[in-house]
């Protein structure tokens, strides 16, 4: 174990590997926010594991000095669940993109929300598959026709990560913008302090394949502070559905028992039967 410096700095959580992201990529902001959050939490790097899948944003573990795991496309949450089950003492961060998390790994997203393990899932959402050079992702708007794989637009409604996380049972749901790394860092701190599955959708522009996203910095705005965050799922759902997807902040926080081995052991058949009767 390395000693924790009195005042760890964000760069103490970075590795010497230089990111290969394109200039202007939103993921730089997310990397900065993660390291800022960890510095402010004063967490020794060896107490944090960062798990990712495949894609541009999934390269993030290599750029940190944390335990890193660059895994299987779409399976980051499942790998994270296994790691958390074996090492409940570790702070588990799972990170990836909208492709990794919502299309090829969409199934795991639903079940990670339900399971409510104590971990934080950061999705860098740029509404495009960047690593394979610019194809529509689940969060791409239906009228985007720039990809050769969607010759007539996506013909599908865009996936709504926050609303789906809510419906699936996530207990902390937030949306943030990579261009505001300090705000994002604060959100990551809250998410990591939240007992249970915390989901942060980060709007993280892709200047290469979605240059129009450079405008996001002028569009993003906070959710109305008087109504959110809420622990009322109906109110949270209303905001998720009314919103154009560009409002940021914590949306929903719920106190629900966290998945843990000890919790499972405490549950008896009588408890389960009681649950069915009530």
């Amino acid at each position, binding site marked *: 174990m390395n000693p924790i410096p009195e005042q760890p700095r964000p760069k103490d959580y970075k590795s*010497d590997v230089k990111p290969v992201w394109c200039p202007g990529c939103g993921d730089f902001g997310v990397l900065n926010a993660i390291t800022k959050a960890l510095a402010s939490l004063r967490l020794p790097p060896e107490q944090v594991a960062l798990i990712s899948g495949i894609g541009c944003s999934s390269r993030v573990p290599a750029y940190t*000095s944390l335990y890193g795991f660059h895994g299987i496309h779409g399976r980051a949450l499942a790998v994270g669940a296994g790691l958390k089950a074996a090492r409940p003492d570790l702070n588990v961060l799972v990170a990836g993109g909208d492709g990794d998390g919502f299309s090829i790994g969409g199934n795991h997203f639903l079940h990670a929300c339900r399971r409510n393990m104590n971990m934080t899932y950061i999705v860098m959402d740029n509404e495009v598959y960047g690593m394979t050079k610019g194809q529509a992702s689940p969060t791409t708007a239906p009228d985007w026709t720039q*990809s050769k794989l969607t010759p007539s637009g996506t013909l599908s409604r865009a996936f709504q990560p926050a609303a789906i996380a809510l419906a699936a049972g996530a207990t902390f749901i937030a949306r943030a913008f990579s261009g505001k790394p300090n705000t994002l860092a604060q959100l990551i701190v809250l998410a990591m302090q939240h007992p249970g599955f915390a989901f942060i959708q980060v709007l993280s522009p892709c200047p290469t394949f979605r240059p129009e996203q450079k405008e996001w910095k002028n569009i993003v705005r906070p959710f109305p502070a008087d109504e959110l965050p809420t622990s009322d799922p109906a109110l949270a759902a209303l905001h998720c559905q009314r919103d154009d997807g560009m409002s940021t902040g914590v949306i929903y926080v719920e106190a629900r028992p966290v998945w843990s081995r000890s919790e499972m052991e405490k549950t008896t058949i009588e408890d389960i039967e009681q649950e069915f009767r009530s």
Partner: protein
Amino acid sequence: MLKQIEGSHAVAEAVALCRPEVISAYPITPQTHIVEDLGSMVKSGEIANCEFLLVESEFGALSACIGSSAAGARSYTATSSQGMLFMMEAVYNASGMGLPIVMTVGNRAIGAPINIWNDWGDSMSARDAGWIQLFVESNQQAVDVHIQAFRLAEQLSLPVMVCMDGFVLTHSYSQVDIPDQKQVDAFLPTFEPRQLLDPASPVSMGAMVGPDAFTEVRYLAHHKQMEALELIPEQAAEFETLFGRDSGGLVKSFDCEGAETVVVTMGSVIGTMKHVLAEMRDEGISIGALTVRSFRPFPKETLRDLLKDAKRVIVFEKCLAVGMGGILAMNLRMALKDFPIRVHSAIGGLGGRPRPITRANLRRMFEKGIRDEMEEPHFHDIHMDIVERELEREQAQRRSGSIAENILQDVGVVAAAKTI
């Protein structure tokens, strides 16, 4: 028409000429350009009457083809590497259900460790899945074999995989003769499904089959592949008559008749090998080559005929059955088991190494084979010093860490992670 185009684009043009009705796509390197070009052709109207689906994963891509093929539509998709592994359940389903889907595999290594470059690990993982597997040597062959693949698939009611080396072929520009629509229409009849979801004659597909019938179903899958051994050369001959090119077939000889040493391989590497072998023959060395174009079904009898007089065979393959050795070599040894022929197994090109495969490094390997000095199996261009250092680390301490990361640090590709 002669064109100077990228391999992926050539394949897209060939598939377009086959009048596909459903194409499902999910991007994965190095196959992505193929489906992207097909998407553009659907948009421009160059491919008419075709539904183009962007799906959420490779599993979705092949499953969509299973659905559309069952409905009687000519269906196509493409994949590579991890994508092939992810769709594996659907791979077995497509062949088990006898659905004549054509799928291009842009051959790429499989991980971990993740690697995007070329070898045959992906196709080989599906070698027993009941698909016909055709390997192509050039982009011209890629075009020609796709056209044959649809006809073969539909005639046999079996899916066909066309395997082409990732990057080496998919991303290289070369001169390709793209046939015209009339020629292709004359060769490839309209899809007449053997089975069809048809409300006039309702059926349920995907029946559960118990011990009382499973063996027969499996036997018939094998039997169909044996039928393909007859059909593939017949089609290649007909193709040659119509298109004027020798493309496809079971195997291809490159002066292997009468040669003492025969190099056996598959795919694009023969392009470089041909030149080395010609050079060696000019020097009086009795050496030739042969490519296996149909890996499944495996053309045992044809290979026996062609190789019966050889003294030794050097099999060069870009894949490895871990714990056993060369896969093509194993298949070949079985085919030649009662012949007094030495079969050397050389494994190379794994994860894109060496880059490039050169005449010089191939020649060194062949000469070693001719001297009968090859290890079993021989690893082409391996750096044993790196291997030995890792074995020493493992010997020195129990918690020696991950092999892949250790070796990256050893060769200096990445610096050791910084700790505070």
